């Protein structure tokens, strides 16, 4: 059963952290000890053309054409975009609209997988990383279709080209995975520690950074130990264990905890000499770049009390969620599924949504848990200040909430509305059950619209 209490670790108080934040029950026990496994191919894959931030990819193949596992099937459209690769050998049937987890149907390439195909990657070209220039490496990263696998899905090569004048002195590798339940990064750090270190080295080379810090939380000591065994001897890469606290995995919180730097409001980490990459992204980079391959699969944690066989699975991009859930013995509807973690993840609109590069996990809660957490009684704000004490950005959610309720959206700028990154701490702690984060999402939208409408 899912636990409701936060695990108490007395040593935690001596570890680095950021100020404020919350301690939701971790519930990592469902999957944290399960090594990564492969799932078989489904009969059809739905590869969305837009599964990254930026412009959708442009198809390179036509319906009826055969593709080989690992072959590029769509090219990047401009700099802020990423190409796609065939996740399995088969034939492109059509380009069709398929549901996405957020609801709207988007264009995807439908690939019929040849039955009995092996999962061996048939496409790719070995590269000598040492001999490559910075520009060649950045191009290679773009060609691999790599995007931020932590969820934001921002094309990685863009982050590798910081603005003019920004000098990166430290690469931060984010292995905090602070969302309850999820264990993708935790397992990757154990099962693919060598790839992680390899990826980190490549990132340092491209950015010209003299050091890198891999940060993880103290509920993942085993992961930290696994990485320490394969660290290079020169000491340029270190592992630091920080306090388990949500949202430690937000890059702003990580920068604060690891190197005590605050990323100024509205600016990139590079403005304070930092570049932050997620563990899954770095592992993939270390694994793919030397082989010249593209992103065709990813590790997905399927977890929660509502699923019979929780675990960490390698899933080809484009696999329909329905196929995975059926394999794991889940008979229910999409209603109780969340893509991502419980704090920032979205509910899934349909079981027909395909896996994209950005989805690191699916959480299946029991119907009862959903009722408990969403239908809680609403009270008026009692000004208890819990949200003020929880907000990792040190905003005043109570005040923002009151302004939102009065529809004073422009007024909210004074209280730094746009510094809110929607981590959900305020909604989590609010004893009155006020959906503060949802208020702020709406407020940001309204605020932008009002500004656009004003002359």
């Amino acid at each position: 059963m899912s636990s409701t209490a936060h695990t108490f670790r007395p040593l935690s108080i001596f570890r680095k952290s950021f100020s404020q934040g919350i301690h939701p029950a971790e519930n990592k026990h469902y999957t944290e000890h399960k090594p990564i496994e492969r799932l078989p191919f489904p009969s059809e894959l739905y590869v969305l053309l837009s599964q990254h931030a930026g412009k959708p990819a442009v198809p390179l193949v036509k319906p009826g054409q055969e593709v080989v596992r690992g072959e590029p099937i769509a090219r990047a459209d401009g700099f802020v975009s990423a190409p796609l690769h065939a996740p399995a050998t088969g034939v492109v049937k059509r380009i069709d609209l398929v549901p996405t987890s957020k609801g709207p149907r988007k264009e995807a390439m439908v690939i019929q997988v040849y039955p009995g195909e092996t999962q061996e990657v048939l496409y790719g070209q070995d590269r000598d990383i040492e001999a490559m220039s910075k520009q060649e490496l950045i191009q290679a990263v773009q060609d691999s279709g790599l995007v931020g696998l932590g969820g934001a899905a921002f094309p990685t090569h863009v982050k590798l080209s910081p603005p003019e004048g920004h000098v990166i002195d430290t690469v931060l590798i984010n292995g905090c995975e602070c969302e309850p339940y999820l264990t993708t990064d935790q397992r990757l750090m154990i099962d693919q520690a060598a790839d992680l270190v390899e990826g980190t080295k490549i990132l340092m080379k491209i950015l010209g950074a003299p050091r890198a810090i891999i940060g993880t939380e103290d509920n993942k000591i085993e992961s930290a130990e696994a990485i320490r065994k394969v660290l290079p001897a020169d000491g340029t890469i270190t592992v630091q264990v920080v306090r388990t606290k949500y949202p430690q995995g937000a890059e702003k919180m990580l920068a604060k905890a690891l190197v005590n730097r605050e990323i100024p409001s509205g600016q990139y980490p590079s403005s304070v000499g930092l570049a932050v990459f997620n563990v899954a992204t770095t592992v993939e980079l270390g694994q793919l770049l030397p082989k010249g391959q593209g992103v065709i699969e990813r590790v997905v944690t399927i977890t929660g009390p509502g699923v019979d066989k929780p675990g960490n699975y390698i899933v080809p991009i484009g696999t329909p969620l329905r196929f995975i859930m059926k394999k794991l013995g889940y008979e229910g509807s999409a209603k109780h599924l969340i893509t991502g973690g419980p704090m920032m993840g979205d509910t899934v609109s349909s079981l027909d949504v395909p896996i994209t590069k950005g989805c690191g996990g699916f959480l299946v809660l029991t119907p009862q848990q959903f009722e408990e957490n969403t239908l809680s009684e609403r009270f008026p704000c009692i000004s208890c200040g819990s949200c003020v004490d929880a907000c990792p950005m040190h905003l005043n959610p109570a005040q923002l909430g009151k302004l939102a309720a009065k529809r004073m959206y422009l007024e909210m700028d004074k209280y730094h509305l746009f510094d809110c990154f929607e981590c959900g701490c305020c909604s989590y702690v609010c004893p009155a059950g006020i959906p503060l984060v949802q208020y702020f999402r709406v407020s940001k939208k309204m605020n932008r619209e009002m500004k656009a409408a004003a002359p």
Partner: protein
Amino acid sequence: MSQAAAASIELRTSPHLRSPKTVDVIMRNVVYALLPICAFAVWNFGLSALALIVVCTGVAVLTEHVYCVLVKKPTTVGDWSVVITGILVALILPPALPLWMAAVTSFISVALGKIFFGGLGYNVFNPALVGRAFSQVAFTLPMTTWTPAQLPGRFVEFIPTSLTIPFLEPGSLQGWLSNVAPDGWTGATPLQLMKSEQIGTEASQLLFGTIAGSTGETAAVLILVCGLYLAVRKMMNWRITFSILVTAALFSWLFHLINPSQYPDPIFMLGAGSLMLGAVFMATDMVSSPETRLGVWVYGIFIGIMVVVIRLFGGLPEGVMYAILLGNAASPLISRVTQPKTYGAVRKSRKQAKEGA
């Protein structure tokens, strides 16, 4: 089929987890924390205290419930906050107060102090203190009539004035007191003794509460322990209590050093009167205290100073009620000027940064 499926899509927004500490859970725990204090009050003052607590709580709950029925909205009694108000009203009234006056106080607390402002979450002042301030003026004499604690017959008979017929003035207690009161009973609380005659009270009595005073304010240590329970469960802002107590202690110690014969020592300041009850259960009322972290300290220090100033230099022996009400009035302003410093806020030193670069 697809139409039906589309219609049944339910999208819920993150976070999908909620802390189990909801308003009603917090309020219910505050009630639990008040129960030992009620029990002590009954043991200390007997039947009259019991009746006072029952009447005040009953009237408070009834007032809110009837109001909700009248305006045809679901009753808000279930959030437990009105129960706290009812109990607190009883605890800050003198045990000999006629029950009808207690009922009026309780009614005023809820009606004027809470519902009038819009109910839970909207009240500017602590409702119980609003009621007490009203009665202080409306029923001046009964509100300052004190009876001894630990009377032998307290569990079998009421203090005679308790049962005064509604809307009549209570009779004199002189005759009854001369029979039951211990020798040397002056009819004064420790604070009054200190104020008028500079007579101290034994520290053990102040701390453990077997003395005259308001129904539930006397047992300083017990109140502190009950507050500790709430603080440990993170259902009370300990910073408010801490800052009030430390400020009051330090500030009064300063005067005590200057003139020990005129001004009491800090132990007396903390143990006597309603400072402990006020600092633990009244000033910490979430609604009427500031919500920012710095604001909470400012508020606590302000109240701590006001308590000492009123007690030592004001016309009244006790100043906790007015100090907290003033703090309540100031708290929106305090919140406003103590907004937290945002992470990554672009500092004024932007020029310096440019020069450096």
